[in-house]
């Protein structure tokens, strides 16, 4: 077991983890935050997207022990106009891809506050949604970007 310390959604956390525990499993189990979902566990679907030091990545492909000394942000730590837009405009249906999608969209808007539709679609190309056909997800992200310009 390895002891790690890291910042999780702004709070200092200390966990003891086996090295083979993915960050995804560590977040969902040891850290008790089940908002981040496991859709495939092998980096193909983006449902497990979290921010580590501001960068979006698949938490299933990172070992939990690698979070030591980092800043991790999950969906539970996010408050952003994206959420209201997803909720109002049909950006979510079953909701399983939604946490990862919103985290990715936030990272996208953090880097590029004024994305074109193509840039949005490129940005979320690693997030699979099986419910919406992506049309309203793109709309929601555009609406959030617009809202933030005000």
């Amino acid at each position, binding site marked *: 077991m390895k002891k790690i310390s890291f910042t999780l959604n702004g709070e200092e956390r200390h966990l003891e983890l*086996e090295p083979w525990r993915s960050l995804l499993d560590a977040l969902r189990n040891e850290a008790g935050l089940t908002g981040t979902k496991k859709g495939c*566990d092998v980096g193909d679907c983006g449902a497990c997207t979290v921010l580590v030091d501001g960068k979006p990545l698949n938490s299933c492909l990172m070992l939990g022990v690698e979070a030591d000394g980092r800043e991790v942000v999950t969906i539970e730590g996010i408050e952003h106009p994206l959420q209201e837009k997803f909720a109002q405009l049909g950006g979510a249906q079953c909701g399983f891809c939604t946490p990862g999608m919103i985290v990715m969209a936030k990272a996208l808007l953090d880097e590029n506050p004024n994305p074109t539709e193509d840039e949005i679609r490129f940005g979320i190309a*690693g997030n699979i949604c099986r419910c919406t056909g992506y049309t309203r997800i793109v709309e929601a992200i555009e609406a959030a970007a617009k809202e933030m310009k005000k």
Partner: protein
Amino acid sequence: MRRFEYFEPATLAEASALLARYGARAQPLAGGTDLLVELKEQLRRADCVVNIKKIPGIAAMSFDPRAGLRIGALVTAREIEISPVTAKYYPSLVQAARELGSIQVRNRATIVGNVCRASPSADTLPPLIADGAVVSIHGGQGTRRVPLEDFFTGPGKTVLKSGELMTEIVVPPPAPRTGKVYIKHGRRKAMELATVGVAVTLELEDEVRIVLGAVAPTPIRAKAAEALLRGREIDPALIERAARAAAEESRPISNVRASAEYRREMVGVLTRRALQRALDAVR
């Protein structure tokens, strides 16, 4: 994932020693976007995982107009993707990086890792080879350099010996008037493993290198195609002949992604398109 022993060596020497001691039972961990997938799908066993991300001096990417581009072992695909320097001088490498997995994957996957994994369809390999990249390998006997073109020996197989680690890739500076193109063929526009990959580096009326991915056990230079073009004035008819030559040089297999016949045909189509685009870029 099955359980494993875990190390975070602080130096290259420590890492090499660990890898040498455990031999085939150890796996180095950089980005983890290949290794963790293979461990989870039981395509690879690791009794010991050696995380090399704490080793200093291998994380930098730098460019010098005379020395070229240096890509340290921990440089991610995303860094290559968004760097203004690579955009200007190594556009085919950028194109390849851009199509590797997703942004989430690219924030972790390293170029060196992509190279060492040696998948025949890996995206960064054809452009790096087309640009004449050379790799530095650290091992028990110090450092050795190997042209990337000579690095691969089979699908997933390289010249790396037990205990060795690749520390950087050096890509020569581009000659003036060079066009560089990478085209990836896949069934959809992202999250794809190339069914065919073609990289072309074309120095106008001088040198041309055409590298094919996913159509042989390793990436291969389409040397017969290159020979048709080298030093000549290139017109559409010549491009067509070169494309066909490249197709004939490819040795693709059939699998669930595509049949060999289709892949061979696509080598022709993509080589033609890549050559044309490279030419347009240079003019």
